[in-house]
């Protein structure tokens, strides 16, 4: 029994993934302090890796068309282990949901509205996301089309506005760091903005052409990576050394834009962009969590779960970290390991199991 009746086209899927990944433009801030003016190289490396991983994800999805992650787990790994896997995944999505809402709030509090208590942002954001989740995947996809275009144009225009302030000498010296640090930065980029597309294993089955999902997924990844790449190049060229010191490089870079003395402090544009992208992020994870939970518990509808999950998320994410410093520390030293289990290890296991099963099947057919 399908909990989600909606069907989205592959184009919509592509836009959804793009707007989902456009958040990288700001998530990359965790990396700036580590790999300062060489961040762009790290991005390229991470991109090469994520393409491979995405191929893995799509392979899993194509093996069982029309089945989402929970169902695939049940089928591929048997009811018991499958349940465990599903539970892990759902927990992981929930974690992401929490982290993003926290990150969003801390950002907004640091830069725009310093005196407003955190819970306000959490509640309002969650309310909006819950509304979107209630309306189902079709609505989310439709919104995402607009958001993808909107955010893309915003970022591009900001970059264009920065051109006058760029200095190519800021890129030098290239790769002025130890390999360990470089690996770390690649790892962060890979886990935080890139590989969380594992959540789309929950959504892929609701596309109209289940078998040809590879193209839109890869295309979306490439496009959004290109966008982020441009953005990073721009802010590196503008900030240079200061990249390391500011808590949000992209934001600091936009803060210096001044067009004809009329259009100063356009950083609120970035804030809005962040709001939009984070909205899509949270909504997708929210949706995945609720849907997966409902499927695991064999419910007839996922709608009753929306409000309680949202409230729990509010309560947890309102005091996730005692301080933003700890958040940054986690993002740089803790989270990559935590995430890579769910984003790389578990899918890898599933993939291997599937492969072995098919091999056995062939053996059985041979005998």
């Amino acid at each position, binding site marked *: 029994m399908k909990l989600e009746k909606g069907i989205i*086209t592959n*184009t*919509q899927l592509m*836009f959804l993934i793009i707007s989902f990944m456009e958040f990288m433009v700001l998530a990359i801030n965790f990396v700036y302090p580590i790999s300062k003016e060489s961040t762009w190289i790290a991005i390229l490396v991470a991109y090469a890796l994520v393409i491979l991983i995405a191929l893995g994800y799509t392979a899993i999805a194509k093996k069982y068309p029309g089945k989402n992650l929970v169902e695939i787990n049940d089928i591929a790994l048997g009811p018991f282990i499958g349940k465990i896997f599903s539970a892990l995944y759902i927990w992981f999505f929930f974690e992401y949901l929490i982290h993003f809402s926290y990150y969003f709030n801390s950002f*907004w509090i640091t830069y*725009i*509205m310093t005196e*407003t208590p955190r819970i*306000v*942002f959490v509640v*309002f*954001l969650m309310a*909006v996301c819950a*509304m*979107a989740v209630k*309306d189902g995947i079709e*609505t989310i*996809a*439709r*919104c995402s*089309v*607009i958001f993808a275009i909107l955010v893309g144009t915003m970022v591009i225009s900001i970059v264009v506005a920065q051109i006058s302030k760029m200095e190519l000498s800021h890129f030098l010296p290239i790769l002025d760091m130890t390999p360990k640090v470089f690996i770390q930065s690649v790892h962060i980029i890979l886990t935080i903005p890139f590989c969380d597309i594992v959540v789309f294993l929950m959504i892929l089955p609701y596309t109209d052409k289940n078998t040809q999902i590879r193209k839109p997924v890869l295309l979306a990844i490439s496009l959004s990576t290109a966008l982020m790449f441009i953005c990073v190049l721009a802010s590196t060229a503008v900030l240079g050394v200061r990249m390391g010191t500011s808590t949000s490089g992209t934001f600091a870079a936009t803060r210096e834009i001044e067009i004809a*003395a*009329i259009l*100063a*402090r356009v950083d*609120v544009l970035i*804030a*809005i962009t962040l*709001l*939009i992208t984070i*909205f899509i992020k949270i909504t997708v994870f929210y949706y995945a969590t609720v849907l997966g939970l409902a499927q695991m518990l064999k419910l007839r509808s996922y709608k009753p779960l929306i409000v309680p999950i949202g409230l729990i998320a509010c309560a947890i994410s309102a005091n996730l970290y005692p301080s933003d410093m700890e958040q940054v520390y986690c993002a740089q030293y803790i989270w990559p390991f935590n995430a890579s289990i769910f984003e790389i290890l578990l899918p890898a296991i599933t993939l291997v199991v599937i492969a072995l099963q098919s091999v056995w099947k062939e053996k059985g057919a041979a005998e």
Partner: protein
Amino acid sequence: MFRYILKKLRFYELLKQDEKQQTEAEQTSKTSKTSQTAQTAQTAQPPLSKSLEENLKALQDVAESNDFVIRRFVFGKRIHAAIVYIDGLIDKELVNENVLKPLMRINLLDNSELPPSIDIDYVKDAMLFVGDIEAQSAFDEVIGKILSGDTAFLMDGSDKAMLISLKGWKMRGIDEPQTESVVRGPREGFTETLRINTSMIRRKIKNTDLKFETVKIGQRTKTDVCIVYIKGLAKSELIEEIRQRLGRIKTDAILESGYIEQYIEDAPFSIFSTVANSEKPDKVAAKLLEGRAAILVDGSPFVLTVPMVFLESFQSAEDYYSRPFFSSEIRILRFVAFFISILAPALYVAMSAFHQELIPTPLLLSMASAHEGIPFPAVAEAAIMLYFLEILREAGVRLPRPIGQAVSIVGALVIGQAAVSAGLIGAPMVIVIAITAVSSFTVPAQTDSESIIRIALLILAGFLGGFGIAIGLLVVLIHLASLRSFGTPYLMPLAPFSRSGMKDAFTRAPLWDMIRRPRGMAQDDIRQDRSSKPSPPKDDEEKPKGTVSEGSL
């Protein structure tokens, strides 16, 4: 389709039951028939009797009202007959000329060539000079037809009545619609009479595929509601859906198409209307040709068209009559105006109370000096002004036009100038509200939803600044994306995205370039083939006649 048939069957069973009750009721109480006509008309179908007197008696009882005229007369070989009509609904001249005169003359002249016995069919075939005439034997049909303006001819000895359609009453002529006046394009607008409206559409689309389906809705008013669509363009599911929704209406009165709209719309709790309406035949025709369906209601010049998409509100008939560049510019302007009208007060409040760093320094200085000594916070200021604005608009609309203008001018002067000079309101706020007001009129289809969104955003901005505005816009957008109008996504063609649709979204492509109809709307998308792009003759082709060659000058 099956559902529809089943519905009908169930309906007929109900009728039978009602019939029994009806007959009993008639035996029990002869009195207060008129009150029963409401249900008798739609339920029981007693036949006419052979005797004229009984029929007339029955008619008399049913419709005892002093505009109900029964004219008895005698013709032929002492045959008693009568015509029955409602005074004011028929054209008396025509009736006298074409019904009474021919019938009553024949007993003056020698009636040798008359057949020995004249039956009513002979009268119909040989005697009445009327085109639109039908025989009817069911009592309530006769009543119904008479009520809708036919003239019934009954004669002794026949259980059939001739329903002669010689309607004629005073009606408003066709003139320019008040709501949608254009600079270029046809000036005619729909009227209150259904037939005239259908004829206007028919004159635009001379095609047998153009279908009209009339249903009577409203137990008391029996309003004619007419579904218009082009067979082969409009999706059959759409038409089916409309039939069902209309069939579902169980009310006693339909007075305007607004009633129908509220009974059939998809999202009754949404502030956005999912049914479009128009007063212009050309606009309706264009929508029909896009594969939409129209719903005409007798007695209302406003024609509903479904399905409606959000971007429709930003299109006007004129966009397609003037050349693409200008109309594209105008359309973008409409979008800008829409956003100004929902955002301007909220943005002003958010900026002046939360994000002063966004304001350029000189502007901030002048704003600050204007806001100096203003008693209210910016939110209250804006709210008060908006409320006054709505009051002004309402007053201007309701009052007779000359006074209305006076009111709005006076109000503007008083509230603007006086309030500023009294130091109650900052001058910038007045400007903002004025801009809001003006730009809210550029998108008439969304004016009402605009004013609600505006207030909501203003409140949010007052509490949470830019964050509030962003949240509010998100909510609106999600809501829009979740809406559907008769199966079509409301944000079409923006989301789901269709490239061919974008040709007619924020800008308008040249007509010859819009090869496809709006996606998902019509049955066959192709509107024209690609060869319709105009191009001057090439040199190798021979020039068409009348073109002056350089040599001849």
